[in-house]
């Protein structure tokens, strides 16, 4: 992924827009950037595949849609 630090005089180019859209697409699969889970102290609502870090029992949980595993 590439990122640009914008300045006020910069015009938006096609390549900028392309990069931004691609970054959005690839951000989930980027292995070089830190990924921090949602940190909670109680169980949130279920959604299949939802992950969070439980700060109370220091575990990562994944929702099956109805249960946290």
């Amino acid at each position: 992924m590439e990122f640009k630090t914008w300045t006020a005089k910069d015009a938006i180019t096609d390549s900028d827009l392309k990069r931004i859209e691609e970054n959005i697409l690839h951000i989930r699969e980027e292995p070089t950037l830190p990924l921090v889970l949602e940190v909670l102290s109680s169980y949130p609502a279920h959604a299949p595949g939802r992950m969070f870090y439980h700060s109370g029992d220091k575990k990562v949980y994944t929702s099956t849609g109805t249960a946290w595993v």
Partner: protein
Amino acid sequence: MAWQQPKTNWDTHPKAIEPADMNRIEGNIEAVREQSDMALRLETVSSFPAHTAGRVIYHTGNKRAYVSDGSQWIPIGVEGDAVAANVLAGKKFSSLAAGVGVTGTMPNRGAVTITPGTANQTILQGYHNGSGYVKGDANLVSANILRGKSIFGVVGGARRIAHGSFRRPGESRPFPTGEFDFILGWRPCIAVMEYRGFEDAHEYSIAWTEYAFRETGRGAIEIVSFLSNGIRYKLTSSSHPNATIYYFAAEEP
């Protein structure tokens, strides 16, 4: 906000950026975190990075995912409180208590055979494969155990016998005469007592309750009766020093 397909073939000349484009971009930025049909890949590292609570990584060296609690890296998916002593020696395991890829130390005892004895035997700590056993013996039955005893909970039913000798009561002349009790601890049904003095004379008494039989030879000793716990006998000689009384008795049925 629903995910929208990104546009990657931008050409703003002559087409301008439309509001729908910007809305899509903004919306996708918000939606991408919760998109359930897109792959999600952890940060991949070969050494542990700085801590942030909830930060997740994949460690290529350890081949394991970790989450940071802010101060330590906790392996994801590892559960349990087992320690090395709880796991068979040589076997690898992981647990929150022991860590990842720890080798067990529990000795493998295999099949242990224990032969009961008179003292408790320690069963060595470790893994037993289920084929071990404590030996049994078909002879461990009541009829083979003396009354008054029990072995591993089997109460003895075998009649007791006693034989031996003791020195007659008294230390000097005139030695005491009369009736004395010889304690066995159980009621006999048959008994023989022999009185043997310094003159080498044999004097005896035999009693057998089953046949109401009692016989006395030469009279120095006489079985008077059977007690619930022994034999009552009578001595008539007061002059024989160092006399020895020999006896044999069998318990009643």
